[in-house]
């Protein structure tokens, strides 16, 4: 009896300790997710209940807890849950929506963006969040040359300057730009860091510490109680190589329409596994609740779903990123060799012939198990600017697609016209001069890429092109790409919603313009127009106008066939029936994904 009393007393105390924190009532400036409200993209979602734990598996350990010095998703997977920025991408629609900012106004000249911040919101340790934290993050961390961060690059304006961040009052900040640059708004989704915790490790603000101290702040060695954020989750436990546990932030400002503070789950556990096979086994064994599957998993998981109680969301919605091969149009340029081959690769007719040899249907069926679609644009399909839509954010109709159908006979015909014929009768086509033409396709050791390349190689050999596929080490491949020393390289690139995120790839002087670096010194008309369209698209806040520029840009790129696009995987996701709202997973956000957005809206429907 006495023990029971003590226990009861302890329970009351602990519940006081837990519920004593957080906001006494919903803050006036809370961010409301319109779950279940008609007319919104959230309308088919359900209001959840709080409690429970969601477990996912991740490959790789985090490398630290410092969001702005992190260079890899294994770290930002967690820091993106711990911090939020002024704006964010909507979980469902992908549009830019307010997050820590209540809203923003753009001045008539388009050069000043004024953000009003949420008032009365606190960091996870109970300290108020104000404009000073935004200024600290922007001016003293991101723009600080001492800080080893990649975040600075996304803030760069086309004229080489950065937006000027100023405080108007405690809850208003302005960003002033020297030129109109719409993608700057996306970039202002940068995660806000707590000034009261971190100012002392910035040399600029605290000369007592050496320059660069911030880079060694919030490492894996830092006591977890030191970590403070404004996002839905805070790291509460880390076991190296085993797991990361995050607990709800009692001061997170997101609420559902019924006044329940988000996230619904109390705890988020990320089991660290070393490869996808183990990750899938853990899902099948019921150890994890959600799983982002690979094409090859579908045949194994589908028959088990009913008996084990999980669902597989199969969509034909393509994901982000591009997959391509590129004939190196600068081959032999530095060495002064391969002159004729280089001329051939630079001939757009030759590249058109190659484009007609891509058997996208076989690639989708054999390599992606039928779960994919053809790709033709440099912009990712989920982007509202994807030119396969009829207007900004419209449905995908592919009316504007520039396509090259699979037609080996047509390809052979083009090659004949170009004089690429079998001159010496050895069964292989030769260069117009009669010199032998051999093509080496390179990719790295990745089952999907090897699959694509083998299909490509067979189709090329079938029309008489002497092509061989060679797997090389990833780093060697990247060196060949940047050193312009490869022949034909097959790889992929990540993509985002804003076409300008690919500017570094497609602008003639971009550092990833690997299909023809020499275009920087000698751009032709089309190169110049592409550069211009990228700048025009970014230089307006009128989305319809931008869409038109970007459509022309995508069509030009696709007709130019620099990177010759192939196919793109569609999106599949597996989740146990008891994970409420997980059906809403999309390439934009998944409960367990690196963006970490949908997680706070999912709940355990057994509670």
């Amino acid at each position, binding site marked *: 009896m006495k023990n029971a009393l003590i226990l009861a007393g302890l329970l009351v105390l602990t519940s006081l300790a837990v519920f004593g924190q957080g906001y006494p009532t919903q803050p006036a400036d809370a961010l409301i997710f319109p779950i279940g409200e008609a007319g919104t993209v959230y309308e088919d979602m359900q209001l959840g209940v709080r409690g429970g734990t969601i477990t996912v598996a991740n490959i*790789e*350990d985090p*490398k*630290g807890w*410092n969001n702005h*010095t992190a*260079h*890899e998703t294994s770290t930002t997977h967690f820091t993106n849950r711990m911090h939020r920025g002024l704006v964010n991408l909507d979980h469902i629609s992908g549009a830019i929506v307010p997050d820590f900012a209540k809203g923003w106004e753009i001045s008539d000249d388009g050069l000043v963006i004024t953000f009003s911040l949420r008032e009365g919101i606190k960091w996870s340790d109970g300290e108020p969040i104000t404009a000073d934290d935004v200024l600290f993050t922007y001016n003293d961390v991101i723009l600080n040359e001492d800080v*080893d961060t*990649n975040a*600075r*690059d*996304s803030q*760069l304006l086309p004229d080489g300057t950065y937006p000027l961040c100023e405080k108007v009052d405690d809850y208003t900040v302005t960003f002033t730009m020297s030129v109109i640059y719409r993608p700057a708004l996306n970039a202002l989704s940068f995660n806000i860091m707590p000034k009261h915790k971190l100012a002392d490790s910035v040399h600029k603000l605290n000369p007592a510490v050496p320059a660069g101290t911030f*880079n*060694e702040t919030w*490492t*894996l*060695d830092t006591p977890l109680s030191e970590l403070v954020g404004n996002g839905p989750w805070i790291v509460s*436990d880390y*076991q*190296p*190589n*085993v*797991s990361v546990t995050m607990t709800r932030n009692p001061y997170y400002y997101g609420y559902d329409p019924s006044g329940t503070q988000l996230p619904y789950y109390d705890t988020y*556990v990320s*089991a*660290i*596994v*070393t*490869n996808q*096979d*183990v990750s899938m*086994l*853990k899902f*099948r*064994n*019921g*150890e994890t609740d959600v799983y982002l599957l690979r094409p090859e998993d579908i045949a194994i998981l589908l028959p088990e779903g009913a008996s084990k109680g999980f669902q597989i969301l199969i969509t034909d919605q393509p994901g982000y990123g591009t997959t391509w091969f590129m004939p190196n149009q600068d081959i032999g340029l530095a060495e002064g060799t391969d002159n004729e081959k280089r001329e051939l690769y630079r001939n757009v007719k030759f590249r058109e012939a190659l484009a007609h040899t891509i058997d996208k249907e076989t690639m989708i069926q054999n390599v992606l198990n039928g779960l994919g679609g053809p790709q033709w644009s440099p912009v990712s399909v989920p982007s509202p600017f994807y030119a396969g839509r009829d207007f900004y954010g419209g449905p995908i109709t592919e009316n504007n697609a520039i396509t090259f159908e699979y037609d080996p006979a047509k390809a052979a015909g083009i090659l004949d016209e170009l004089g690429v014929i079998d001159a010496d009768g050895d069964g292989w086509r030769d260069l117009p001069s009669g010199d032998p033409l051999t093509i080496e396709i390179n990719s790295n050791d990745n089952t999907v890429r090897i699959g694509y390349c083998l299909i490509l190689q067979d189709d090329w050999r079938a029309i008489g092109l002497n092509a061989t596929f060679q797997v090389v*080490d*990833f*780093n*060697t491949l*990247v*060196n060949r790409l*940047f050193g312009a020393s490869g022949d034909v390289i097959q*790889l992929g*690139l*990540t993509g985002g919603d804003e076409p300008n*995120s*690919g*500017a*570094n*790839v497609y602008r003639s002087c*971009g*550092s*990833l313009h690997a299909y023809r670096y020499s275009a920087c010194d000698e751009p032709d008309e089309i190169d110049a127009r592409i550069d211009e369209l990228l700048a025009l698209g970014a230089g307006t806040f009128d989305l319809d106008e931008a869409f038109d520029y970007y459509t022309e840009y995508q069509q030009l790129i696709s007709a130019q066939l620099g990177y010759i696009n192939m196919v793109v995987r569609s999106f599949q996701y597996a989740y146990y029936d008891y994970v409420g709202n997980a059906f809403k997973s999309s390439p934009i956000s998944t409960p367990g994904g690196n963006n970490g957005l949908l997680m706070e809206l999912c709940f355990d429907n057994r509670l």
Partner: protein
Amino acid sequence: MLTYIIRRTLYMLPLLLIVSLISFTLIKIMPGDFLTLARMDPQITEETLQSQIERFGLDRPFMVQYWLWLKNIVTRGDFGFSFDTKMPVYRTLFLGNRLPWTVFIALSTLFLQYLFAIPIGIYSATHQYKPSDHIVTFLGFLGLSIPNFFFALVLLWMLVVIFRVGDYGLTVGNAMDMHFYGAPLSWAKIVNILWHMWPVWLVLGTSGMAVLIRLMRGNLLDTLSLPYVQTARAKGLRERVVVYKHAVRNAVNPLVTILGLQLPTLVSGSVIVAIVLNLPTVGRSYFAALQRQDENVIMAGLLFFSLFLLIGNLFSDFLLAWVDPRIRYD
């Protein structure tokens, strides 16, 4: 004895130096570096990359980089920082309980290997060319010839798909259920560890056992044919006494001496198994560093494994001298 230990320890220093130079050369001739991945990111500018190259000193000539690395170790005991985690390399390698786990897994596997290999070897020798000898030998070689990582994957697959252990609330991989890692020691925790460790012991143990069984069998057969065994039998001793008291004691010597050599094999050999079975060992952080070309951590990891090898060698030399009076320290 003491001078022997000191002399042998001093011999290790030039060896480690040579190992480090070879390792450093190998790392440098690998294509790419820590920043190769960043180069493929369309969002990162050339200027940022350049500033990182300078920060990490990757633009300096090879010998300068090696010299600076060595100088910092000799003068300040500083093995450098990890590019990836921005922590000192020893923290990166040994973060959490990686070192104790590595030692525990190696020692417990070693113990179990001997526990099973010696009796099986004896049985095999005393039943030479009988069907049971062939079966034992066959199983031993099977264990030796199946690649560890493959065996581990098959085992996991069988547990999950054939035996559906998830239906009984049992998890696979890891050294214990996740929530036990931070928990204090209890019976439930020990039982849980045992459930998770048996596949580890099975996978790691079987690969080395065949060697030990064959060694034990061969030695015992040699010994059993020696004249003193015949003498013992002629005296009318029971076969049990002849085998266990007279023959086995002498036949087991070489097994004791290779004990020291088994240890480093287990530590470095468990890297892949630790990856498949998700064990929190030093091998994991070393492998992560290899994937990212995190140079300082790779160097420290290689030195760590070499040190283990050298200590294992030293240890087996001691054991050899200890069990065999004919060996002298000088």
